[in-house]
């Protein structure tokens, strides 16, 4: 039997360890290489962990991601020249999803940016964080500082019981709404004060929180969280299946420099004032794509039968010519069917369209469906 690991199996020469490394191992985490680190792909099993998160609360270690703090004079204008977000309109403690764009409108990374009392806090993907930092350093004026919080850990607590469980440790988190954050102070059993930056956000489609904290406090905090009956540690495997069901694209797979915000169906990241005023990379091309439609577009697929169709499979036309590709795919535990994200010609990117896929010499049929595959359950303002 051959085993093709499809974890981000890059052969890093030297894998780094994150602050919770031994914590994961002690809990039976199966460690795999991911974004240059050894990270837990699963504990008890992807299916069980996925379903636990949808029903209770799952704790994810995402400390591999890049946490940056930008500060300095003229920051808002300077950053708006690199991303299509409305930074000037971003209120204190408000968080926005955005895209780091190349000159031609291709996507260099997707990210979260939050207005702090002093500066902007940004979370970028682990696999490209050093490229992002280099890009920002090259394009932002010298007066703007980029502080990489590489001693900080990042946890995500996700699921319908997340607010209840976290609220026991950190009273007040329930007052946050989706895409806002605040600073909190947590005191460990040993009496140590640990500062927390908590936002109500995540990558599963569920309600939940992302918690940034110094690496020195993360073991005690992770212990306190998993002591709550609703909380179990969850690996990268379930993180991938959860985000796929929730229509959340993954950089390096569903997004890359060949994709644009319009083809990636991320038009919501192009803020209205920015579309009108321009001034971000690729503006002309992106606006043209918005008007005329992109050549290919990211869609969701439900695959017929039980066999998963995965990243790399071809979308083919009636003659068998390749017209698109699958960028993520797998068996969806909550849907109980194989699902996928794919780029297909815009004419096919309509829910209900039946398309043909080819994988390892075998033909599969799939239907384009409206994403997300599982409804989002965010706790929004006013809800």
């Amino acid at each position, binding site marked *: 039997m051959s*085993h093709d690991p499809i974890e981000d199996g890059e052969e890093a020469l030297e894998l780094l360890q994150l602050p919770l490394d031994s914590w994961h191992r002690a809990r039976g985490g199966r460690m795999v290489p991911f974004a240059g680190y050894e990270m837990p792909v699963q504990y008890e099993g*992807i*299916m*069980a962990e996925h379903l636990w998160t949808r029903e209770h609360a799952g704790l994810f270690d995402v400390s591999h991601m890049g946490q940056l703090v930008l500060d300095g004079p003229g920051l808002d204008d300077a950053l708006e020249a690199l991303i299509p977000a409305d930074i000037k309109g971003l209120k204190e403690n408000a968080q926005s999803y955005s895209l780091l764009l190349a000159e031609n409108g291709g996507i260099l990374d997707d990210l979260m940016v939050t207005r702090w009392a002093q500066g902007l806090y940004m979370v970028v993907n682990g696999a490209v964080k050093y490229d992002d930092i280099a890009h920002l350093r090259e394009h932002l004026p010298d007066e703007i500082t980029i502080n990489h919080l590489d001693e900080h850990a990042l946890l995500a607590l996700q699921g319908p019981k997340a607010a209840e469980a976290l609220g026991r440790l950190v009273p007040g988190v329930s007052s946050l709404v989706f895409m806002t954050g605040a600073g909190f102070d947590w005191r460990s059993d040993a009496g140590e004060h640990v500062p927390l930056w908590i936002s109500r956000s995540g990558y599963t489609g569920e309600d939940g929180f992302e918690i940034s904290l110094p690496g020195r406090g993360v073991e005690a905090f992770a212990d306190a969280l998993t002591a709550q009956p609703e909380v179990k540690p969850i690996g990268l495997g379930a993180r*991938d299946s959860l985000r796929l069901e929730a229509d959340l694209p993954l950089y390096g797979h569903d997004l890359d420099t060949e994709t644009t915000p319009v083809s990636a169906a991320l038009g919501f990241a192009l803020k209205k004032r920015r579309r009108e005023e321009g001034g971000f990379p690729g503006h002309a091309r992106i606006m043209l794509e918005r008007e005329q439609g992109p050549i290919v577009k990211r869609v969701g697929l439900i695959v017929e039968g039980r066999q*998963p169709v995965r990243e790399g499979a071809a979308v083919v036309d009636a003659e068998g010519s390749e017209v698109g590709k699958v960028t993520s795919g797998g068996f969806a535990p909550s849907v109980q069917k194989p699902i996928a994200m794919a780029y297909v010609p815009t004419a096919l990117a309509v829910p209900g369209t039946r398309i043909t896929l080819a994988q390892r010499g075998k033909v599969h049929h799939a239907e384009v469906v409206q994403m997300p595959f599982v409804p989002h359950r965010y706790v929004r303002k006013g809800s």
Partner: protein
Amino acid sequence: MRYFTEDHEWIQVDGDVATVGITDYAQGQLGDIVFVETPEEGKTVSKGDDAAVVESVKAASDVYAPVAGTVIEGNAALADNPALVNEDPEGEGWFFKLTLADAGELDSLMDEAAYQDFVSKL
């Protein structure tokens, strides 16, 4: 008599019929199995040929024919219930049966003790 391969397959031989599956170690490594494709009756395979496909939530893997032969049956139960491979890998979760082309090929395989020793060193 039961034999094992370094690719984590088991082969139960009864007369000239061999039943093939994957080991408990293999199913544990794969995790939740969501799809199994077994070979059709009448297919002839050489040792090392792709004979079946097993897919977990995360990955697709090929199952090789551990010996040459002619397939006489795929395990139809796996189509509706691939999780049988997780639950009973070395019993009800068998993949296919074949008639042996060359019983001599079995000599190169491991017995249970040798396989356990092999796995303990992984």
